[in-house]
């Protein structure tokens, strides 16, 4: 299931596994010429599309030079391509039917293979990534070194090339002012915390991505087990913060969340930032049973679908028109 449709327990929302791979004896994309990139992109996509595996029928190839900026941005907001790829006209991305797998070609590395799923399923997602990786390797020779592992453009990915991450919704830790302290306590253990759209983005809507920062020296299983320990401890703390709010400040909490729901249901115009934060509060309210979840879409899906470029679609809307369209869309689907 696509990552924003299954909210799991309302705290650990989705799971992502990314593997970085490169071809042996081949310069990385940053220093390849356009024609070289085209040639390599073809070889790489053939490793899936022309393989005997059933994967070949499940994937569709999108060449970046044939896509409009809006289409690319929409894909980035669904986390199928990186923000960097929006600006690029070289390379391609392979996406499977249910949008849980994407293989970016010619990003920072030749291959960025990604599994993204709703719920908390690190082992399952890793197994799948591992299998796709094996299919690709049947026709490709990877840049690999006995000592350094899989070789990548940036030394932060070398070794396993694995970035395992989990998206968490932590509104109660934010409201009780505990979030900074909680996240800081994990800063020295090879774990990184980022906002919804990855590196350098804000954690708007109390959405956080928790991932491993160390990729070398630990096995894939060890990396995933370590991440699980941290994620489960943070989840426990969020649960405690929710219980505390319900026990000691129930009326204030309900008032705050219901007001957010009211604004989303009646606003005529709403900015992306306000929508994100209010939808995050409704997500909490639904999860705690304060508001029924009877809308057409989950609040998380609405966050994704009302991001500036997604709400605009192919139309060129002014920010004001966008805010109006967003408010209407939310009203109808929440």
């Amino acid at each position, binding site marked *: 299931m696509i990552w924003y449709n299954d909210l799991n327990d309302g705290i650990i929302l989705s799971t992502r596994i990314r593997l970085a791979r*490169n071809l*042996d*004896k*081949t*310069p*990385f994309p*940053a*220093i390849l010429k356009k024609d070289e990139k085209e040639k390599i992109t073809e070889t790489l996509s053939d490793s899936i599309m022309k393989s005997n595996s059933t994967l070949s029928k499940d994937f569709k190839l999108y060449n970046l030079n044939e896509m409009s900026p809006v289409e690319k941005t929409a894909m980035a907001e669904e986390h199928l391509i990186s923000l960097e790829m929006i600006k690029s006209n070289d390379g391609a991305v392979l996406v499977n039917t249910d949008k849980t797998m994407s293989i970016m070609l010619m990003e*920072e590395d030749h291959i960025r293979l990604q599994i993204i799923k709703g719920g908390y399923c690190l082992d399952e997602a890793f197994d799948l990534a*591992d299998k796709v990786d*094996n299919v690709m*390797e049947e026709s490709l*020779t*990877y*840049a*690999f*070194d*006995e*000592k*350094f*592992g*899989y*070789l*990548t*453009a*940036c*030394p*932060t990915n*070398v*070794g*396993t090339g*694995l970035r395992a991450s989990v998206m968490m919704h932590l509104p109660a830790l934010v409201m009780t002012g505990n979030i900074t302290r909680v996240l800081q306590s994990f800063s020295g253990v*090879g774990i990184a915390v980022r906002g919804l759209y990855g590196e350098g983005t804000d954690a708007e809507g109390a959405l956080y991505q928790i991932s491993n920062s*160390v*990729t*070398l*020296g*630990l*096995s*894939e299983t*060890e*990396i995933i087990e370590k991440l699980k320990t941290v994620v489960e401890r943070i989840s426990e703390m969020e649960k405690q913060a929710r219980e505390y709010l319900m026990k000691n400040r129930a009326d204030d909490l309900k008032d705050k969340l219901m007001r957010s729901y009211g604004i989303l249901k009646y606003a005529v115009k709403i900015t992306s930032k306000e929508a994100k934060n209010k939808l995050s509060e409704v997500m909490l309210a639904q999860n705690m049973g304060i508001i029924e979840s009877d809308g057409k879409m989950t609040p998380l899906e609405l966050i994704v679908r009302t991001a500036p470029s997604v709400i605009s679609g192919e139309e060129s809307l002014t920010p004001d028109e966008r805010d109006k369209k967003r408010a209407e869309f939310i009203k109808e689907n929440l």
Partner: protein
Amino acid sequence: MDLFSELFGMFDDFDNMFTVNTMPKETKKCPVCGYGWNDFNRTGKFGCGECYKTFKTGSERVLRQVHSASEHSGKIPSKSGAEVKAKRRLEELRKNLKDAVAREDYETAAQLHAEIKEIEGGDIK
């Protein structure tokens, strides 16, 4: 990347060491992509996989800084890593043998010993 440019500034002393120990840094270029250590310092990225081997001492130091480790212990690709796989297997068996001896489980130790002998004596694949 900004974070990195700071980090790589820490290796200025290393550049000098490199010059003394091997050859002048400006002439040492990666045979596959043509990158020099300066390019890495400038961008924070390597030009190709071969760079890691070309600038071995440098990359080891960077990796220790970033990951507090410089040895891979994860997945090995089947094609480019067949030999490495066999080596890892031997290491694992030797470790198990040591553990078995330590806990005086001689039956397991004997089995492991036989297995190691077989791999070492036979064609490593």
